[in-house]
């Protein structure tokens, strides 16, 4: 489906609830509030015949921005839908009941950013290691900000100074 047609039909159906932006010929961005997020994804996938590709989460301290990519292959462009889930309890409707291919990426975004997808059939972490504490979400800004680089290797020597460029203590540089 042509780019202009897709933009027109989305504007007709969603009106003010979405904002459409087109930074280049090959990219269309649609911003939706989280209430209309599921409807928008469903409309794109079922009615406008887009292919589902994948999703991304981006933490900006106030909340988590979630993006999903819907490429149009024949017409050579990408539609990206965006929404925003505010902290402290980021929560979104799950699109994986409409698009089963989104199951794992939603699990990943939950695992990394603690975005809870309402209605997801099985919201377990997908990449987790067994030793990770249950309430630790690695990609959250808070965790990144607090994280102090630890460079203690097997020999027990802390190599933090080597990484930061300071000469190691007690040794000739």
């Amino acid at each position: 489906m042509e780019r202009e047609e897709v933009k027109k039909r989305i504007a007709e159906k969603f009106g003010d609830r979405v904002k459409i932006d087109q930074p280049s010929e090959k990219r269309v961005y649609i911003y939706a509030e989280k209430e209309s997020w599921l409807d928008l994804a469903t409309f794109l996938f079922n009615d406008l015949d887009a292919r589902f590709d994948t999703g991304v989460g981006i933490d900006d301290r106030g909340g988590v921005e979630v993006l999903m990519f819907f490429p149009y292959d024949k017409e050579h462009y990408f539609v990206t839908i965006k929404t925003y889930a505010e902290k402290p309890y980021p929560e979104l409707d799950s699109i994986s009941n409409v698009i089963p291919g989104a199951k794992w990426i939603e699990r990943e975004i939950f695992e990394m950013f603690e975005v809870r997808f309402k209605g997801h059939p099985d919201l377990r972490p997908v990449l987790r290691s067994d030793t990770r504490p249950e309430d630790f979400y690695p990609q959250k800004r808070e965790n990144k900000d607090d994280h102090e680089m630890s460079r203690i290797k097997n020999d027990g020597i802390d190599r933090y100074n080597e990484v930061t460029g300071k000469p190691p203590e007690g040794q000739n540089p």
Partner: protein
Amino acid sequence: MVKKIPIGPFHPILEEPEFFELHVDGERVVDIDMTIGWSHRGIELLSEHKTWDQVPFLVERVCGICSCSHPYAYVKAVEDLLQIEVPERAQYIRAIVAELERLHSHLLWTGLAGHFIGYNTVFMWTWKYREPVLDILEAVTGNRNHYAMMRIGGVRREIPVEEIPNIRKMLDDLVEKNKMLTGAIVDDPVIHARTEGVGILDKKMCRLYGALGPTARAGGYNIDARRDHPIDAYGKIDFDVIVCENGDVYDKAVVRQLENFESIKIIRQALDKLEALGPGDICTEIGEVPPGEGIGVYEAPRGEVLHYIRSNGGNMPMRHKIRAPSFNNILTNEYSVVGDTVADAGLITAAVDPCYSCTERVGRIDRNSGERWIMSEGDLIRMSQEKTEEIRKMMTGK
């Protein structure tokens, strides 16, 4: 009675660890639970601590086999943000390295697939034919894998003029060998019996599960990022996208075999262009990376790989998302394995090319009694040989 068969996560012949828990009722698989992330290295996070130019070295270590595709998608994402075009010469060099990679990856898979079904002749042949491709890659880039060719704005190294005849000769040899190999696969009754109608993933399911690459094209879902989102030289090169209909393991093998011919076609055209262009720039200088976001897609051997980057104007990506094709493709097992037999499950999961086989060590646990027993490698080889013999008798009537 439903039993669970755990397969994985670590396995001597695996490219990557995965864990499959098959729920079986007799011979049939009734449900499957997959766990990935056994070697999660946090590359996305690491990449956010590297400068723009360092990231290609990091992302080519995402996968040892696709070590050109990931940097390619990444540099395209940054170039999408910068809105720059790379010099024409660099575009063709990129295409040549990327297609050589596809050749060696597809040959690797064909060999492994042969090994999985107990057909080790195919395994030996293909890996022998794969060697010259790796030799050429070594001559061109300095390495058999991890080529470090991609750079934002172009490529890092020139293809030496004296290498071009060698590449052509290797391609000529490979066409003959690939024809022979394709014939051997298409004509073989055992391969037909073992793979036809097994693990079917049709077009509708491909779309629902977001299947990519040969997995999708085997099921008639006609997508190929090289044609659909043409980058660099691919818009100027003539090639066909191979599409089959049935979506079974056999079609997946055929798609990969025929794609080898297309890759050879692309490399030949790119070499012609390279010779016609003569010496020139291979890299554009880029300045500061402004705030913004970019998407880069490239058709890796296993399917479309997507890199998303966001910049806040600094010297490192603020967010770098990597989506490898197997992330989508492995999920399709949820549909394609269920309903088939246990013996086929390993083959089906391997057919999406995470190169996973369950056929070396299988532990079985009876859920009700808690009894467990482990089959040895020897047991499994014997079982597989018996089954092959059975099929051969069935097909030939002897």
